[in-house]
């Protein structure tokens, strides 16, 4: 597990995380920016990285910027948005070939670094505004991206569940922002927001590959400097106590019904019972040996996919499945029974051992990819913790059946959402 030895340095305005490993044929940079999720900013934050990655001062058109990336042996640059707890996180990822595996040995690391810094800090700006044409194009793309959620029913029903379940909480906001807020963004107010984000966000740079920490540090020092800041904390909202379970049915022209059920786990990353929660999820629905898969799919033959997953910073668990419209009651019933079984401790030592083995394997596999490793390490930034991976695995393996049963009894069903076809709604 040496490859996860993460060396962290406080730089000016951000933290640098270097992971030296020789297992990849490329080097990867991930630049992360985190701020509290707010209705006011979320749409601008979705648009901003799109504008930044489409051109820069030195490469003022997409063609120029992308040609240069191609020239650097097809370096990839892409952006990604995520919600973690009540935070909105922007990531820029640049991956570039390690020249040791090319016949042309021109060093590429520094060039990649320079390009990333160009994209982040030297945008295509006139006066106090981004390039008008770029902003217009990217607004159109953003609108299409927001709209496209509707067309992917699996994603759509998940978004709808969260909207219903977290009404009034920041987490109900969509990761790509809200369609109605796109129009009011201008090249001026977006540029204003750009300056704000780079002076207030919590920022982290991960560099992973066959690199030398000192070299990376000195390049980072010369290229990326920002004002020091104290990052804003998300205001932790009290979860509104619901009197009873919420059931929402929505009708559309679909052949398969999408069943999404949301639970409050009341446990987040960093809590002492977080690893017990991971195991709970694994036995309950996370894998193909879990209770949901066995009972809903293998025994009752109701679904092709059925699983549960955790949102570690918000304290949610989501079950998702695609079922025939007429099987709603039966499927919901079976899923309820599985949670009840967990609460009663109705699972074997074998299931527990099996789940520990699978989770351990999952973690070790995840850190085999530079992206997966970054995501695992970044949990500590989001939660302001310092949990080492070894500790994560050890604590998970020490977890007892009693602790898992205790976790099961903290979990509350909040909302059942069902996207259904026309014939099923009475």
């Amino acid at each position, binding site marked *: 597990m040496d490859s996860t030895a993460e060396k962290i340095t406080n730089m000016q305005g951000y933290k640098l995380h270097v992971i030296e490993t*020789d*297992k990849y*044929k*490329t080097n990867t940079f991930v630049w992360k920016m985190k701020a509290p999720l707010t209705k006011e900013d979320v749409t601008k934050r979705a648009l901003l990285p799109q504008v930044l990655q489409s051109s820069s001062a030195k490469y003022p*058109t*997409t*063609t120029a910027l*992308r*040609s240069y990336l*191609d*020239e*650097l*042996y*097809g*370096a*990839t640059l892409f952006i990604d948005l995520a919600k973690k707890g009540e935070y909105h996180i922007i990531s820029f990822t640049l991956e570039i*070939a390690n020249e*040791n*595996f*090319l016949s042309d040995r021109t060093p590429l690391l520094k060039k990649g670094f320079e390009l990333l810094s160009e994209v982040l800090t030297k945008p295509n700006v006139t006066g106090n505004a981004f390039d008008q044409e770029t902003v217009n*194009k990217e607004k*159109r*793309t953003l609108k*299409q991206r927001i*709209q*496209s959620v*509707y*067309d*992917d*029913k699996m994603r759509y029903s998940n978004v709808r569940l969260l909207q219903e379940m977290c009404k009034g909480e920041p987490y109900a906001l969509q990761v790509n922002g809200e369609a109605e807020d796109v129009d009011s963004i201008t090249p001026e107010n977006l540029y204003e927001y750009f300056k704000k984000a780079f002076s207030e966000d919590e920022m982290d740079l991960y560099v992973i590959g066959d690199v030398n920490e000192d070299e990376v540090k000195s390049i980072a020092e010369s290229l990326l400097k920002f004002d020091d800041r104290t990052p804003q904390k998300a205001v932790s909202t009290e979860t509104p106590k619901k009197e009873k379970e919420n059931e929402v049915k929505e009708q559309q*022209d*679909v*052949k*398969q019904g999408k069943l999404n059920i949301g639970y409050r786990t009341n446990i987040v990353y960093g809590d002492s019972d977080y690893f017990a929660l991971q195991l709970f999820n694994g036995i309950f629905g996370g*894998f*193909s*040996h879990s209770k949901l898969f*066995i009972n809903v*799919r*293998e025994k009752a*033959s*109701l*679904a*092709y*996919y059925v699983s549960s997953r955790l949102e570690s910073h918000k304290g949610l668990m989501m079950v998702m499945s*695609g*079922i*025939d419209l007429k099987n709603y009651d039966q499927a919901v019933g079976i899923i309820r029974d599985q949670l009840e079984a967990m609460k009663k401790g109705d699972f074997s030592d*074998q299931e527990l*051992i*099996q789940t520990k*083995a*699978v989770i*351990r*394997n*999952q973690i*070790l*596999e995840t850190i*085999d*990819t530079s992206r997966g490793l970054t995501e695992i390490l970044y949990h500590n930034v989001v939660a302001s913790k310092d949990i080492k991976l070894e500790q994560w695995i050890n604590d998970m393996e020490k977890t007892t059946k009693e602790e898992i049963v205790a976790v099961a009894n903290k979990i509350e069903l909040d909302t059942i959402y069902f996207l259904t076809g026309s014939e099923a709604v009475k």
Partner: protein
Amino acid sequence: MEKINFDQLQEELYHEKLPNGLNVYILPKKGFNKTFATFTTKYGSIDNHFVPLGKEEYVKVPDGIAHFLEHKLFEKEDGDVFQQFSKQGASANAFTSFTRTAYLFSSTSDVEKNLETLVDFVQDPYFSEKTVEKEKGIIGQEITMYDDNPDWRLYFGLIQNLYQNHPVKIDIAGTIESISHITKDLLYECYNTFYHPSNMLLFIVGPVDPNKFMDQVRENQAKKQYKEMPEIQRKFEDEPVQTAQPKQVLEMNVQTSKCLIGMKALHVDQTGPELLKNELTMNVLLDLLFGKSSENYNQLYNEGLIDETFSYDYTQEQGFGFAMVGGDTENPDKLADQLKNMLFQAKNGTTFTEEQLERAKKKKIGAFLRAVNSPEYIANQFTRYAFNDMNLFDVVPTLEKITMDDIKTMASEVISEERFSVCQVIPKK
């Protein structure tokens, strides 16, 4: 056991063909936690017309049976193989494509046991009438899930436009109707014909000792009895060069329209280095025409005809092949026209500069390096290449040799009205 060195990539590949015909490849990967293994048969959705082992007449089997078989192989008399893998800390899966069915696991511990489980479960089928019936409900849900997926419908709609007879036009999972005809006897007939070791390839990649693992596989196979296998007789109806239809529009419950244009391949009898060169040349041509750094891409994006879902790809195997270009769009007809124009301009001599070609090749070489970071990519693609008599590790040297003349010849030969088609998904009124 032979050892093949790839100096530029600093990789070593070990290979042995066992007495029963099974090809085994092992690629040690230092520094990785995970070992990934695939056990693949050269049998996919297109192999629906063949002479079953031990018989003389051709039979046609129900659509979707290769995929159905893949599902059923996981179930044994004493339970589910998924359980076995997870007890050993592995995650297992499988997939069926047009030409292959692959079974796989990844694990970071108990790798020997998991490998044994993989090979043994694939080589020990257990089908019963009861479990076959039960599976119809599960796969029925998989089929309806895809029915609601506009991107899948668009993709298959285009293939159905392009192909008149070839079974590539049949949905891999079949239909609820077609799978209702599947029986345990039919499954055994397909299994016995296509799962002989001589029609299969085992690939292991990870932090492994190749000698030890090759010994293990050798020993495992020596314990099993396989008769000498005659060559499998598959039949494909003649496929005209022309498309089945020039256009198809599907109305679905979507808000954004989608448009995909396709070009049916020529020279689909190619194999080996010839096929590799053809496939890569076409992909470089598409990059020159539609890559993010191309003028065309920029123009389409500026006009608001494409967004970030825009993509393109070319794939070719023995008997079929197609190029596809498109994505979400506000104006599916205009996008179709523009893409078609751009293709035909290339046919009629759009000139690319040597500099553009070099850049496109560099981009592909970098993409290959990125891809070989992934054990999954290596195992899956190596197998696909090997089944077409190509070598995955020839990609970079083959790319380096592509010339402007190759690109021009490709454009002028392949792009043609009679092989061009459009498929669109539009919002239901």
